[in-house]
């Protein structure tokens, strides 16, 4: 305790040395914390927005074979999925049915292609809040069962205004052509660059267009309370569904993803006789399957940030070690006096180690506080509706600091500083009192 008190006094008395060292640690910690919080926040935002756009974190779609061996994307008996979801555990917050189809939109002599998702905004709270409206508002969509939300670029290509009627032409789940009238209820900011440039219709209206009978569904999206339960819930859901029908996990069979993409394109795939199945086959896809590339990118960014941090820490530690070699030389008379007064070698060593710990810990905490302040300030900036909105939360950059990681990083930096000072500390402890006192002078 005495060593700690003396160390604290030394650190505060020798500010010219302590402050630059602490500032260097703070800078390294600031950069590392900011970058990792940014990338983790980016992933959180994208996951949250994907969950909002797709209606959940787990997606169950079904397909069956028609007499010609063609794969039809439909779940005839959704109660099977409902029962499996009920049994899959308590992490499920809600579930809603979804449809999707590539359609041709026709207004006057203009035509545009658009992938349209059928949603049930009444059951998926917050879905409309997750969209950025460029024109119109959510209430128009909610009020009109034939309402259609389209990317602003599509509305421009069609030359229509919000409130105008368009003809929607699509291929039914069996491959027949069908058309119906819809009303443009709003223009939204699309995410064409990310391949998520969707339009939205009410699922009942889209199902009618696609000839999905009442009571049947194309897919069911499952929203979880806690994304941490994703793997466990998906595993349990697979086991439950497998009791009734064949199940394929998108993560296990990459070939199923093209099939899913094909379904999104409205194509009817043919299935070889040896691969045929009876009844409905379920495909389970998770948000991780969709964001595999994004997650890899975040991992790479975090690894890069960690590498940069490691380099900064090494440079700082070399600086700390050299600084304390100098400290040892400067304090030789003081060390001699302390040893002459009965301070043990371990006491001298502990003073040095405690000083290094205090400087590093103070720097790390300062860096963390600075990073938190910067994040708070940047997070307040409203970036509005733009092509970046998919990476934002309600128009704001979101940073995610994991408290456990922050504490561990602070401890790690502090302990590494202690390790760096170990050599000069031992050298200081080994100085003979008589020799040290002779150097006074």
């Amino acid at each position: 305790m005495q060593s700690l008190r003396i160390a604290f006094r030394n650190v505060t008395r020798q500010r010219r040395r302590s402050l630059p060292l602490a500032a260097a640690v703070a800078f390294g910690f600031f950069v590392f914390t900011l970058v990792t919080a940014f990338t983790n926040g980016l992933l959180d935002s994208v996951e949250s927005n994907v969950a909002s756009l797709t209606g959940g974190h787990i997606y169950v779609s079904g397909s069956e074979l028609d007499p010609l061996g063609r794969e039809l994307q439909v779940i005839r008996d959704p109660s099977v999925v409902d029962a499996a979801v009920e049994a899959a555990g308590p992490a499920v917050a809600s579930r809603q049915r979804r449809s999707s189809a590539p359609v041709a939109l026709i207004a006057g002599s203009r035509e545009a292609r658009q992938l349209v998702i059928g949603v049930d905004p009444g059951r998926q709270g917050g879905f409309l809040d997750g969209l950025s409206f460029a024109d119109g508002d959510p209430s128009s969509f909610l009020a009109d069962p034939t309402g259609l939300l389209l990317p602003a670029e599509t509305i421009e290509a069609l030359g229509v205004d919000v409130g105008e009627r368009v003809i929607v032409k699509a291929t039914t789940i069996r491959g027949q052509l069908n058309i119906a009238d819809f009303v443009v209820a709003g223009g939204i900011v699309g995410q064409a660059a990310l391949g998520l440039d969707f339009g939205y219709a009410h699922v009942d209206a889209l199902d009618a267009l696609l000839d999905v009978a009442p009571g049947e569904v194309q897919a069911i999206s499952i929203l979880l309370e806690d994304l941490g339960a994703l793997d466990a819930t998906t595993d349990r859901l697979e086991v439950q569904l497998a009791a009734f029908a064949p199940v394929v996990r998108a993560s296990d069979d990459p070939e199923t993803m093209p099939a899913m993409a094909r379904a999104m394109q409205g194509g009817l795939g043919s299935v070889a006789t040896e691969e045929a199945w009876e009844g409905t086959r379920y495909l389970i896809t998770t948000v991780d399957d969709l964001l595999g590339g994004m997650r890899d990118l975040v991992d790479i960014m975090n690894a890069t940030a960690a590498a940069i941090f490691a380099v900064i820490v090494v440079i700082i530690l070399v600086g700390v070690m050299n600084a304390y070699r100098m400290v040892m030389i400067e304090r030789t008379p003081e060390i001699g006096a302390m040893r002459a007064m009965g301070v043990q070698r371990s006491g001298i060593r502990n003073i040095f180690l405690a000083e290094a710990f205090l400087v590093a810990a103070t720097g790390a905490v300062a860096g963390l506080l600075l990073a938190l302040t910067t994040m708070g300030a940047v997070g307040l900036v409203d970036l509005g509706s733009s092509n970046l909105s998919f990476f934002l939360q309600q128009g704001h950059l979101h940073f995610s600091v994991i408290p456990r990681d922050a504490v561990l990083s602070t401890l790690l930096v502090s302990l590494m500083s202690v390790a760096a000072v170990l050599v000069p500390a031992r050298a200081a402890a080994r100085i003979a009192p008589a020799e040290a006192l002779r150097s006074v002078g």
Partner: protein
Amino acid sequence: MTPGSFRSLPMALAATLLACLLPVAAAQLADVDGLLARIDQQGNYLGDLSATVTLQSIDPTEGDERRQARWFRRDADDAFLILILEPTTELGQGYLNVEDGFWFYDPESRQFVYTSLSESFEGSDANHDDFGAPSYADDYRITSLTEGTLGAYDVWIAELEATHGDATYPFKTIWVSRAEELVLKSEDYSLTERLLRTSYFPSYARIGDAYIADRMIFVDALVPGRTTEITISDLSTAELPEYIFTKAYVERVNR
């Protein structure tokens, strides 16, 4: 028939007339029963076909477009292949319909992508399945049949309803010449029974016992002023090698 069966002479005359006409009507109905099958039979050629296809699209918004392609067809296997020749930016793109599905080949990505026969061909009003052999008898049943005229032709006007959910158009009305039993006009309807397009087949080429429409005009019912005209030229019945209807050939022809 016994005296007194009819109460008056006019009634008796009407009954006599009806009795005379019934065999004619019965014979006509018998003919009509096989109408769709006969249309299919005439439209299917037993050998191989190849030709140059020219597609002229008129679009009030997008402007006019001309495309040309080589077309290979083997009705016995229900197979066809279309290789785009023009525009040069799309040279080498191919549409292959074989047993395992209908594929689009993009020479840039060098990949085959599954697509649907009911989809529009190159964004025109023609569909991919317009390039295959007709299959009215398999896909439709007649719900109404009347006599009429179409220009100078005496025709059957048949309203059709798809017998299964796989036909591209759930409802159709076709005008069939009574003399040759060729489809001269077709109105194609959606599942919601709204007109999607009107097709005209003003010219047929006779090859053996088969008739192949060598001029087709598709008028879009949804986009006013948009039409597509397909002309088939250089029609050949020379036997085609087996490898023509393979993915390997579509890839190789691009190299």
